């Protein structure tokens, strides 16, 4: 509920009328996020009596719709948030970035308040004009973000996205099944004979091409067709020795021994490391040619009709003790040093890649939206998957 605006002495009569109007407007605006345009602003100018100082922002309330991967919010996060703020959160799940972006494409950027997508996709959504430009003043906990998180290539200064988790892509392998520890992406692209058909690569376009582009010394956001075709040729060779392109079950393939060396995101490798039977034999490393810096980010849609609540939600997640629970669940790093400091040392010890510092992470190349080059990339990937 709004507090009555401070009426200057000479405007007391106007003040009363104003208060009544404000209460009425507040009753209309406090509501579901799905309602139409909010019924009038509480700072509606009354006949210019020079009265009120700007009103305090209404305490966020109501309901927001959030889209995120399943099992990507800690179990109690939403319940606790609702208990504390009274804001209802409806968590809609998406399986891949492409799915949620496709849905937003078709619905013209509407349907949600907060959307969690990976960085390059966030940049893409912003290029379509669908993301709210973030007012950092409304995020009281933003000071907990690492300073390096301000220098992410896809969104310097975090103007339209706030990183939720971040990490790298590398090689995850079984120390007992791989005779010589890998040092380069070539150990994946040109596997040793005993690793034939025991290696997998990630299936999503950007990460499918990553090892080849790094080995050839090209950018991960390469748009030159000749360069991409070089990468393609390299990957067509690799395909002959590949077990599968796998985005989701590669760590269980490592655990079962079906695969010995896989391209993996660092957090996912931790799921293999967490296994009770063979976890101690699984290790993650970043090849010498370097890798990417990926981030999953939180964004607010411009079409949202309950932005205050959306900001409150994001702000809540930026609290160190909350961000720490994200680490516990996902075994990913969060760009929140205060949160990382709270993580159980035993956990940090079991999963070494959690200890990577933001400075080290910044050595990776951030993935950017491909813009007009996206069809070219899709074509190249089709040539690879359809090729012999």
């Amino acid at each position, binding site marked *: 509920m709004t507090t009555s605006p401070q009426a200057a002495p000479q405007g007391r009569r106007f003040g009363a009328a104003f208060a009544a109007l404000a209460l009425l407007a507040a009753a209309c605006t406090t509501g579901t996020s799905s309602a139409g345009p909010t019924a009038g602003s509480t700072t509606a100018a009354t006949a210019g009596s020079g009265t009120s100082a700007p009103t305090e922002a209404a305490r966020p309330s109501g309901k927001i719709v959030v889209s995120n991967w399943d099992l990507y919010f800690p179990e109690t996060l939403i319940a606790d948030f609702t208990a504390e703020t009274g804001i209802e959160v409806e968590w809609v799940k998406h399986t891949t970035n*492409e*799915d949620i*972006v*496709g849905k937003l*494409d078709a619905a013209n950027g509407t349907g949600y308040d907060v959307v969690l997508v990976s960085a390059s996709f966030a940049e*893409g959504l912003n*290029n*379509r004009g669908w993301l709210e430009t973030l007012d950092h003043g409304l995020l009281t906990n933003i000071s907990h973000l690492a300073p390096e998180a301000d220098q992410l290539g896809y969104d310097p200064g975090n103007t339209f996205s706030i990183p939720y988790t971040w990490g790298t892509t590398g090689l995850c392998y079984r120390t007992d099944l791989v005779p010589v520890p890998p040092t380069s992406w070539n150990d994946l692209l040109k596997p040793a004979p005993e690793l034939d*058909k025991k290696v997998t690569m990630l*299936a999503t*376009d950007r990460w499918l091409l990553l090892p080849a582009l790094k080995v050839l010394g090209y950018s991960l956001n390469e748009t030159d067709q000749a360069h991409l075709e070089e990468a393609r040729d390299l990957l067509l060779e690799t*395909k002959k020795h*590949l*077990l*599968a*392109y*796998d985005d989701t*079950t590669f760590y269980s393939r490592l655990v*079962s*021994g*079906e695969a010995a060396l896989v391209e993996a995101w660092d957090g996912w490798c931790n799921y293999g490391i967490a296994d009770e039977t063979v976890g101690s034999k699984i290790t993650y490393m970043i090849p010498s040619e370097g890798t990417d810096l990926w981030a999953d980010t939180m964004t607010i849609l411009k079409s949202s009709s309950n932005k205050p609540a959306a900001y409150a939600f994001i702000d809540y997640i930026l609290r160190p003790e909350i961000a720490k629970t994200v680490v516990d669940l996902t075994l990913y790093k969060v760009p929140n040093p205060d949160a990382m400091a709270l993580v159980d040392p035993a956990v940090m010890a079991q999963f070494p890649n959690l200890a990577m510092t933001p400075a080290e992470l910044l050595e990776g190349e951030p993935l950017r*939206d491909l*813009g*007009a080059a*996206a*069809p070219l*990339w*899709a*074509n190249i*990937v*089709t*040539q690879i*998957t*359809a090729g012999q």
Partner: protein
Amino acid sequence: MLRRRLILLGPALAWWAVFLAVPVALVLAYAFLTRGTFGGVVPTFTLDNLARAADPLYLRVLLFSLRVAAIATLVALLIGYPAAYLIATLPPRWRTPVLILTVLPFWTSLLIRTYAWIVILNREGLINRGLAAAGLIDQPLELLNNEFAIELGLVYGYLPLMILPIYASIERLNPDLREASADLGGGPLRTFRRVTLPLTLPGIAAGCIFVFVPSLGNFIVPDLLGGGLSSMVGNLIQSQFLRARDWPFGAMLSLILIGLMGALLFFQAWLLGRQRREALDA
């Protein structure tokens, strides 16, 4: 007659006019427009998408898909027809329950069943372990991440769509016809070939279409059971809309595919229609 047409055809066709024709036509129209720099569609007319579709890469994907779908359909037919025949000739009390039994597995998620196949087919899976334990093999068979697995997945996924229409068309066969044929000296095989088979042709046609068409457009099975190592038409179109965010080109590919299938189906409908007209005139 007009009133009958309205009552019978009206509801379905009206529904399709609103929820099928209009939305899909709007999207397919994009085939002649241009992709915006960041995705989206810009209303600039172009035939570029048609030119791009002529790339031999896409023809190769199409031919591969046609072959895979055709094999899956054939296998489903060979397996499904005898099963449907038996169900249709069971005592009436048992027909519907057994029919439902064949469909029941499909009331669990396709993804769950596909992952189960991975457990069965992979190197450490049930089949390989069983065969190794029986001493029949010393190297695990490669049953996954190849075309065999894709075929298996497609046949498995669409078998009930083959069985159900064939069942429906056999069920209405008058058993007296078969008796009569037998009385006149026709052996069971002959009766089948001359009497049963031709009369169940509509069911066979329907079953084949029900299996062939979705197989062509399937993208889950090539990804999971095929290990993502091959691309079918479904993956291709999916990729245009969701990865490349190139709706115009995706629409063009879809238009071509729909046109192709539509032509085949038109031909099939014309053939069946002609057969029916001849039968009525005879």
